[in-house]
């Protein structure tokens, strides 16, 4: 079996997060693979539909939940549109896990501030559940999440669950014009909400993921609030084919997103050319 040959996975469940974003729960067909499959929060894989090709996403479920993986995707290209046509029970391909991960061991005993925008909640959700499944090992868990509109919020059922938990602080916002009459969260952009909340950098790690424009405004803000740039993590999502450091397209300067990333600190981002 060469490096490019995927494991076979079966679509067990699917949930429509928004009108164009769907989550698959996938199980490995080979019991031996399922048994030994392990990963860390932040790693990614190459998902494929036979006949349509491969596409790259993070693993959106936490490593604390064994026996399956989840992937959330938008139908934007050939492979994701083909994924969208699959039904429960269908077989697809998965290669991975690849790349580095969020150093959760290092974050134990500290506060964690999650900041996510739109579908950027997918990689963050993996870390959130990883943290919540080991809740007693972390201090305050704060989640700041926003999307263009109420309809664009993903994992709505889980947002409700987090909102109801006493050990999670959840703040939500939607862009102006994206609210509904019964929207109870803020109406602003994610960086604006972060600025308003002014979280304390004391003993806190921040994990930030979202569209480039959100990252661009959020990172300087965290710096202004006093977060050390090596305590702020994000994940980059450059286009990839192999995921193995060979096909030559995900690099940002001399850094390969597939091998040195996808998880980077704000301090590392500062040293990279703007090609992500």
């Amino acid at each position, binding site marked *: *079996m*060469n*490096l*490019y*040959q*995927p494991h*076979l996975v079966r679509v067990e469940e699917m949930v429509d997060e928004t009108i164009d974003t769907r989550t698959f729960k996938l199980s490995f067909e080979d019991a031996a693979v399922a048994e030994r499959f392990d990963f860390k929060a932040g790693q990614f894989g190459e998902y*494929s539909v*036979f*006949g*349509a*090709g*491969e*596409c790259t996403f993070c693993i959106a479920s936490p490593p604390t939940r064994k026996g399956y993986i989840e992937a959330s995707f*938008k139908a*934007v*290209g050939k492979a*994701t549109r083909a994924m969208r046509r699959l039904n429960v*029970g*269908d*077989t697809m*391909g998965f290669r991975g896990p690849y790349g580095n991960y969020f150093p959760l061991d290092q974050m134990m005993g500290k506060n964690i501030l999650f900041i996510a925008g739109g579908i950027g909640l997918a990689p963050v959700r993996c870390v959130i559940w990883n943290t919540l499944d080991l809740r007693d090992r972390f201090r305050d868990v704060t989640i700041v999440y926003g999307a263009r509109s109420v309809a664009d919020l993903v994992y709505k059922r889980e947002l409700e669950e987090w909102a109801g938990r006493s050990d999670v602080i959840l703040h939500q916002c939607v862009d102006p014009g994206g609210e509904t009459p019964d929207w109870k969260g803020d109406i602003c952009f994610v960086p604006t909400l972060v600025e308003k909340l002014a979280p304390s950098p004391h003993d806190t790690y921040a994990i930030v993921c979202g*569209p*480039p424009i959100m990252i661009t405004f959020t990172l300087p803000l965290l710096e202004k609030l006093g977060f050390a740039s090596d305590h702020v993590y994000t994940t980059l*999502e*450059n*286009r990839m*084919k*192999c995921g*193995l*450091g*060979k*096909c*030559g*397209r995900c*690099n*940002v*300067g*001399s850094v390969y997103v597939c*091998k040195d990333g996808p998880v980077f600190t704000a301090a590392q981002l500062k040293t990279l*050319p*703007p*090609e*992500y």
Partner: protein
Amino acid sequence: MNTKRMLSRANLDALIRDLVAAGTVVVAPTHSSGQERTGVTYGQVQSPDEVLLDGPQPIRPLKGVVFPPTEALFRWRQEKSAVKIEEVPTGFKETVVIGARPCDAAGLEVVDCVMGWDFRDELWFGRRQATTVLAMACTTCDESCFCTAVGLSPTSTRGADWFLTPVDGGFEVDVVTPKGEAILDRYKARCPEAGGAAPSRTAGLEQQVRANLDVRPDRIRGWLETHFDDPLWKRVALRCHGCGACAFVCPSCHCFDIVDEPDGAASGTRRRNWDSCQTALFTLHGSGHNPRKDQTARFRQRIMHKFSIYPARFGEVLCTGCGRCVRVCAAGMDLVSILAEIDRAAQGGGEA
């Protein structure tokens, strides 16, 4: 191992016949598709008459022997709701390359680094393992050759298992690697020990290549590391069409795409195909965002990858100075003059 041996032209022809008779795939510079008008390239030959050792540099590099332009990664078959995967073999037919140019032989060794770090590409190394490279010193060069600027020369033995130096009446043979030794053991009778030193026909070539371009890769790398936003990039890249021909003729470009080729609804092949960082789609995200949004960024990536990124990661320049990208470019992009300009700028002189 270091004893010089002599391979007469008649014995080389006999060696080729021996190899073909033994079922070994023999690859050598030859007329592409048997037609003179389509130029000389590396191709499989059946007889010595097809081998063109004195011709021009083959128009395509040797890399296709180890890394085919398109190659199957696996096949799949849909059976009712189940999918079956058929592996492709990673054992390959023994292949002997005769008359590889030093720049092409070196290219294989340079690309080994990226194919082997951490994850080992069995398809690349399977073919590498099966392939013995009998490289030959160049006897001609043109104004686009610049191997001496990247640490090689018309007589460098990198990537070669045997190194043939053309002398009167044939070739002097240096056996460079254990793999070369193994071939020698089988065909010793064809290569008696050399009597005295024969005059080589490569004299003077190195100076000629050096006159084309005399730069220092470390100096160029230093400049590249600090000049991401230099105006040179836009000025130089404006004429680039983004066709990617430079990558396809390059001995060290190794970027690839992975695509599915269905043969119907129920089966097909996943393949990898050569790709090029010069095309606009190469880095395009699903969202429509493109981190390398214009040709300036894409051309800069090509130069950075070869002369800064690869050296930083692997300690090797990702260029063997073959000059093909210069010869093939429809827009006249000239790596020789670009490198000369960067090197001048790195020394604090000239525009860049």
